[in-house]
């Protein structure tokens, strides 16, 4: 059951009015333009035992994603495809508002939004992850770990997940005659990645959209809207999140604002893999 959050910190009225009136004039409390991201950085291989990992910072928001690739059974309806699993944890060290325990609706939404963007865009060619058709396939686990929450977890998690998948190497292995798979050690072969998927989330402040909302902006915003794009500019995922509404005519405006910015995120991703 989903319940209106009732124990969230109260935002001082003055702060709310300041952020809203600034946005109306096209400025933000941290001096960014309305369509400007905070600085983005990506550190690959941040978790040594993972088969692929990435630590992404967007401003003060920090998200670590780790990929584990393990042999497992395919789903009955897709016997000749590997399996992708995305999970997200809002660990209590990341924010005074996060509690230990099983993922709540926010963590579940975050994981599912990232999962769908990766899955529906066919970012990974799952048909290449088959070990024994119908019997054994690679199961790709993407675990998103939010370490420091300063807003816009959607984009930071999407980017960390994508970077970790691109960083990942399939373990060195051998398929034995009895149908078991022996893992020999770390591998060199990357995952069959066909598309790079990145996202741009807008905070909704009344009639104004702000790219990459910080935590204090999210606290006063009505909600946000997430757009995922593949590297050819197709829209591969949308999620309106939070108790906001949008003018029917403003939906395409929001999409265009996001689409004008996905190159920035893609550039950061590409840069991380050049060096």
């Amino acid at each position, binding site marked *: *059951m*989903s*319940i*209106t959050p*009732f124990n969230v910190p109260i935002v001082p009225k003055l702060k709310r009015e300041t952020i809203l009136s600034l946005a109306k004039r096209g400025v933000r409390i941290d001096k960014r333009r309305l369509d400007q991201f905070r600085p983005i950085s990506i550190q690959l291989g941040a978790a040594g035992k993972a088969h692929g990992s990435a630590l992404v910072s967007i401003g003060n928001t920090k998200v670590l994603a780790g990929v584990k690739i393990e042999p497992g059974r395919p789903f009955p*309806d*897709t016997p000749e*495809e590997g399996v992708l699993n995305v999970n997200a944890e809002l660990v209590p060290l990341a924010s005074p508002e996060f509690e230990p325990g099983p993922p709540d*609706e*926010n963590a*579940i*939404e975050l*994981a*599912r939004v990232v999962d*769908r963007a990766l*899955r*529906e*865009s066919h970012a990974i060619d*799952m048909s290449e992850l088959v070990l024994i058709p119908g019997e054994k396939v690679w199961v790709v686990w993407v675990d998103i770990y939010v370490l420091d929450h300063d807003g816009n977890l959607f984009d930071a998690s999407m980017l960390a997940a994508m970077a970790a998948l691109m960083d990942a190497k399939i373990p060195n292995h051998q398929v034995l005659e009895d149908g078991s798979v022996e893992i020999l050690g770390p591998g060199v072969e990357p995952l069959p990645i066909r598309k790079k998927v990145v996202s741009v989330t807008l905070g909704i402040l009344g009639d104004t959209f702000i790219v990459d909302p910080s935590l204090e902006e999210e606290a006063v915003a009505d*909600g946000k*809207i997430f757009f995922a794009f*593949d590297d050819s*500019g*197709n*829209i*591969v*995922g*949308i*999620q*309106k*999140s*939070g*108790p*906001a*509404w*949008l*003018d*029917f*005519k403003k*939906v*395409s405006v929001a*999409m*265009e604002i996001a*689409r004008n910015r996905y190159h920035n995120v893609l550039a950061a991703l590409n840069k991380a893999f050049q060096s």
Partner: protein
Amino acid sequence: MSGGKSPVPLFKDGKRHDGRGPMDLRPIEMKVGVLNNANGSAWVKFGRTEVIAAAYGPREPPKFMSLPDRALLRCRYHMAPFSTDERKNPAPSRREIELSKVIREALETVVLTHLFPRTVIDVFVEVIQADGGTRTAAITAASLALADAGIPMKDLVAGIAVGKVDGHLVLDIDQIEDNYGEADMPVAGAVNLDKVVLLQLNGSLTPEEFNKAMYMAWEGIKKVYALQKKALEEKLRKEVNL
């Protein structure tokens, strides 16, 4: 979009697998006031998709669970174990938890919660039969149940999903079109206010397709909205004639 190839052609000679044109909705039925105990209730059917919604409140919330300036909204989207082809475990899945959230957040925009501080308003939706478009049927039924309960709202909320099958945009997709199509975009709106309150996209669309899909959704939402008003009117008529 579970992958694989569709057992039937999804789009042939301008017609869909069930004979509908791209803009045709499935046969829709709605009934308001179908449950005895709930303060408000509604039954909504889109083709073979069938949902029941009930609204309770405003009522006293559990201890330590209230807001001083408005009512809390609680929402549960849940699928009956027999609503799907294979029995669904009745425990709430991750999908149901997410959908409960997006439906609640859509309803929060229209319900006048500030009129009822320190109370809770509950909306429960049970999917009786799932054949695609359950979340949009659910939110359509939920807003009818709230209206039936007499809870003040800025507008009704109506929902519909646009899909893409064999490269064609089509309105109100069913299970087969969802499973084997290229995109599923559920949209819900408050038509009188021209506001979009729920928007998701699973799948891939070009920006041009997206803009077209939004217009198609809005056309569908207007039709669903007209049926909602009719269903509420019918119930009121019956009450007045008693």
